């Protein structure tokens, strides 16, 4: 490095650094450099984003207004695809499945993450080992998680049924019913993400001033009361953040239910017991080759995400509202 940072910088008016000591060409280059280089630096991201982000979104909207098949018929049909979707039972089934699994996975997940974060925040030997341990599921790929859990939930030889049989429960065919498939898939999601959310919440917990707890302790507040009256309200922004991330992840659920099926037909069980909206989109596009319909479903999925984010935002804003 040839920089001499120890040289005291001369006082300069304004933000623009002096370019004295250079030729006129240098000065012109310096001005050009200051003016243009920032755009050059951010351009790779925006070029890629335009091609692989903006274009697909806008084009999806365009395709959704057509009867559009791959390399086939392309007729403008206006909002017909949307009208059909709204009356399509299979689509609503997928929406209900997606929302159902989202709710029964996210709520326990965040409550457990909160309790786990609180436990991780205590003084204990081997803190790092515990933190690494709860992150272990996060680095296990989703496909691997789904394969292992699908085996654990196997009807005849699965460990879950074996365990339940100890309590006299008959073997459950987990894929067969909506409720059981939802539970099985939700446990896959929760196993993978609870530790991650706990670590995020733990980080936020550590920024809460300790004096608050000391004051509460002097006032005689129990540990439990301190948790609900100080920790949870102070964590509100982070809880909003984790809910937000879980919403996007939950409403675009795809890999776990696809792998749970075994055959990637995107049908989500014999009667679509666990077909999600993302699976519905892929099925319409790449199994039935109805691109226009799939594109319309993709936009409705986006609307669903916006709605979900909005609802969750209003709900989580109330956390600690009693404070």
């Amino acid at each position, binding site marked *: 490095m040839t*920089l*001499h*940072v120890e040289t005291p*910088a001369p006082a300069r008016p304004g933000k623009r*650094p*002096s370019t004295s*000591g250079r030729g006129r060409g240098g000065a012109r280059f310096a001005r050009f*450099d200051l003016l243009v*280089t*920032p755009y050059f*630096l*951010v351009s790779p*991201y925006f070029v890629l984003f335009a091609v*692989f*982000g903006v*274009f*697909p*979104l806008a084009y999806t909207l365009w*395709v959704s207004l057509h009867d559009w098949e*791959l390399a086939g018929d392309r007729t403008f049909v206006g909002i017909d695809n949307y009208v059909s979707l709204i009356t399509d039972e299979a689509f609503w089934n997928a929406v209900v499945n997606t929302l159902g699994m989202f709710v029964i996975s996210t709520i326990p997940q965040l409550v457990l993450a909160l309790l*786990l974060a609180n436990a991780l925040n*205590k*003084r*204990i030997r081997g803190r*790092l080992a515990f*933190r*690494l*341990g*709860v992150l*272990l599921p996060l*680095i*296990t*790929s989703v*496909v*691997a998680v789904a394969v292992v859990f699908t*085996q*654990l939930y196997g009807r*005849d*030889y699965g*460990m879950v049924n074996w365990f339940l049989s100890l309590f006299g429960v008959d073997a459950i065919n987990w894929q067969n019913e909506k409720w059981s498939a939802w539970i099985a898939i939700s446990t896959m999601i929760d196993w993978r993400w609870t530790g991650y959310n706990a*670590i*995020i919440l733990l*980080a*936020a917990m550590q920024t809460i001033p300790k004096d608050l707890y000391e004051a509460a*302790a*002097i006032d*005689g507040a*129990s540990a439990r009361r301190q948790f609900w009256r100080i920790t949870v309200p102070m964590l509100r922004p*982070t809880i909003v953040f984790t809910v937000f991330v879980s919403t996007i992840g939950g409403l*675009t659920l*795809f*890999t776990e239910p696809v792998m749970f099926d075994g*055959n990637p037909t995107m049908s989500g069980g014999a009667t679509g017991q666990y077909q999600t909206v993302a699976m519905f*989109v*892929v099925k319409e596009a*790449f199994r039935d080759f109805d*691109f226009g319909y799939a594109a319309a479903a*993709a936009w409705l999925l986006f609307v669903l*995400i916006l709605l979900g*984010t909005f609802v969750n935002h209003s709900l989580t804003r109330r956390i600690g509202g009693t404070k």
Partner: protein
Amino acid sequence: MTVVNPGGRAVAETRNRVWDAGPLTKAVLALALVISAFPIYYMFVMATRTNEEAIDVPPPLLPGGHLGENVARLLATEDAYFLTGLVNSAIVSVTVTLSVVLISTLAGFAFAKLRFRGGKALLGLILVTMMVPLQQMGVVPLYELMVALGWTGQLKAVILPFLVNGFGVFMMTQYAGQAVPDELVEAARVDGASTMRVYASVILPALRPGMAVLALLVFMQTWNEFMWPLIVLNPDNPVVQTSIAALNQAHGTDYVMLFTGTAASVLPLFVVFVVFGRQIVGGLMEGAVKA
């Protein structure tokens, strides 16, 4: 509750107790650790067993001695293209990781340390777009784009769309903002350094720890990608995740081979985690507080 008197000792006791791990905390943590580790442990145990042992009741919980033959059978299963998948995943993940880190440090430097018209608005735009699930929303046009370019079935079809990573830009902007003092940039300017020179000599060295964390996160994320590769790649040229899906579909009853493949697919991530786990935890926690 203990009687609280103004004496210093009692206060100190009360204060300490809240932060000490009680038996309940220890039990919760131990249980969390067991639950986190068990499915992974079970996966590796199954990879060392035979199919007959795999369906024993109760199921085997200790490793057996059949790993070698399971691996051999996995590699001999030609329709899964498992090795091709592993190599492809490595190529895709490394390329995406290097590119995203480069793109993100360039943009992060500009957003955090340079003043330019529209900079704030552009950064805001990135934050908004982070909310849009591009891969799910845009599958149809992305696929048509790949067909038009003649890229379906090729690795570049799964590399290029993943270079768009708003999270990376956001993270590097945050990191550059706090890791590089403005004075350092100014001083380099006074010495006549151009913007690119400042990037190379001042910014990059300071960003190195943040870059490492970003690289690890992007690598794991890319290694995990499933939906888009499943759509755009062909079964004979898969990535590791779609290769396992194929294995699951065609040889799902050969549990132990399937589990051997699954174990092999997470092994690279575990190696990364064992070596860099401390930094990953640190990076996640830092990022969380700033977000």
